[in-house]
């Protein structure tokens, strides 16, 4: 019973991280209909940025979070304007897909050259603290990361729902033509959306860096996880990402506890395949489209 409760809690905590790692991917996919295969690169890039901040400048990862997010926004927006937008204007969605893949390869190569492919981790002083509630133990870093992830997702929801910019983004997603007729500069909106998506990816990287060991080559996994989360929960909405993330987190930890650690990825990928076959638009459907 205690194993079960622990697994459940760990699954939810891990799910929160998966959600924040996927929410940017979901936003970009929902608004621009571009699958960003470089998403994992932004996640891992965030982890390395936090690593540098921690080892070189002694800045705590949690404090580095806003800086990393700002950098992620700038890089993402520039990358969208210089590369992605041109590929999209070439006409085919596959062109954009390939371009993001090419970008991912370049960055991964760069990270491998600069940081080597050794496994890294960030361990601030509090990283081995455990909160104990009766027989249930709670990893402090995971718990804090989960709360941070949750807060960021709520923030993003409010941003999309309540602010002028959020409204503009949603309007452009609904119909680019109509938005442009109302005086919206769609290309600028896309750049901003991509920037926000990248900032959230980078933020998740910082949290992941504190929780798990990482190497540059992990990026593929994070891209695929993001895709699975989005497929499970539904494209374009933060709520969908949260739901999908927690489901995937639970699937992962329960497999780990009750089936065997080597099968976690198999179960996660099979879950993706099943979901694609049964309901490719996710549990919450196209929640983003429904909300407009």
């Amino acid at each position: 019973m205690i194993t079960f409760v622990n697994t459940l809690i760990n699954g939810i905590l891990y799910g929160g991280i998966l959600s924040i790692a996927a929410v940017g991917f979901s936003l970009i996919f929902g608004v621009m209909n571009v699958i960003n295969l470089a998403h994992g690169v932004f996640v891992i890039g965030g982890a390395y940025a936090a690593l540098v901040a921690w080892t070189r400048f002694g800045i705590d990862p949690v404090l580095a979070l806003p800086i990393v997010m700002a950098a992620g926004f700038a890089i993402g927006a520039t990358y969208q304007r210089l590369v992605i937008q041109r590929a999209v204007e070439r006409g085919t969605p596959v062109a954009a897909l390939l371009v993001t893949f090419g970008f991912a390869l370049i960055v991964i190569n760069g990270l491998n050259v600069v940081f080597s492919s050794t496994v890294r981790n960030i361990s601030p002083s509090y990283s081995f603290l455990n909160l104990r509630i009766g027989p249930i133990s709670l990893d402090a870093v995971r718990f804090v990361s989960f709360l941070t992830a949750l807060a960021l997702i709520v923030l993003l929801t409010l941003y999309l729902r309540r602010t002028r910019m959020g409204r503009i983004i949603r309007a452009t997603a609904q119909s680019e033509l109509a938005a442009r007729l109302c005086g919206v500069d769609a290309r600028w909106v896309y750049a901003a959306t991509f920037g926000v998506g990248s900032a959230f990816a980078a933020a998740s990287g910082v949290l992941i860096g504190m929780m798990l060991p990482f190497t540059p080559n992990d990026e593929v996994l994070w891209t695929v996880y993001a895709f699975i989360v989005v497929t499970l929960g539904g494209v374009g909405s933060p709520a969908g990402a949260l739901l999908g993330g927690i489901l995937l987190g639970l699937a992962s930890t329960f497999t780990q506890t009750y089936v065997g650690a080597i099968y976690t990825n198999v179960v996660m990928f099979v879950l993706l395949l099943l979901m694609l076959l049964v309901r490719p638009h996710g549990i919450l459907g196209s929640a983003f489209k429904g909300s407009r």
Partner: protein
Amino acid sequence: MASNAWARSTALLALVVLLTLLPMVLPPFYVRVAMSICLGAGFAVAWYILGGFAAYYSFGHTAFIGIGAFAAALACQAWKAPHWLAQLGIGLGAATLASAAVAAIIAWPILRLRGHYFTIAMLAVALVCAELASAVPAFQGAIGIGLPNIVPLSVRVELFFYWVSLLGFVLTMAVAMAIARSKIGYGLFAIREDEDAAQMLGVPTTRYKVQAFVISAALTGLLGAMFAWNLGYITTDSVFRGSLSLEMIVNCLVGGLGSLTGPLVGAIVMMAVTKLLLSNMLEYHLAFTGFIIIAIVLFTPEGLVGFVRRKRLARQARAEGNAE
């Protein structure tokens, strides 16, 4: 017209004979490069049967390379044959059958997906296969498995594998050309242009897609076994590598998705560039590939073959304009 076809077949035959004999005078390093070109072009053409004809871009074809490689290795472990040709036949046969069987099982559900979803689902298939090859002890993927040495004593090793790879490439190309000229081929072209319209006009789209998928997978598996034999010893990481899927796509893209010449030209160009020009910059291979992908998509989306063809047409049009 008929004499034209004759001339073409004769030229093709002469080319194959030349390609068969040429490496006997080349130094071993270049024979290895030629072998890599044959395998690379073969993989690219096999990918093209689904990705080029029907525009179903698979990002996970390395699954079939791996399945072929492991099927060959496990089959050779189970059935030992005294003669090298028989052993080669067992390995390649097992590889082709295993890949075709797996493809046939997943074809129906996975081909219901389109566009991005198909692409990513194939990526997931490749990851599942790789994880299973490592996780299930019977497949021995984590520790690795060796393939028996089948090179006859009288033949140089690199020559033997060059000939095997050349055979694989010629076979793949022949199958692809046959498909392009067949009813399935035209059906696949129709799917590429507009799948819904094709279906409404009575093209059995599902059947054609499944056939193309299974053929593509079987050929990839066959070539994968050849690739594995050349390595000699395989692990999950060496045959289920994502970069192998990538190479197929990049070769097709560099050459161009317009015709079957594309994957061949792409494989030759990319292999020449990476093996010869960049041979002492190994650590920047990935970045270089990334730059090539971005440059091709942004500047010549029709690939090298399409680019040359367009230039030629433009020159012809200009020449005709001057003549008038």
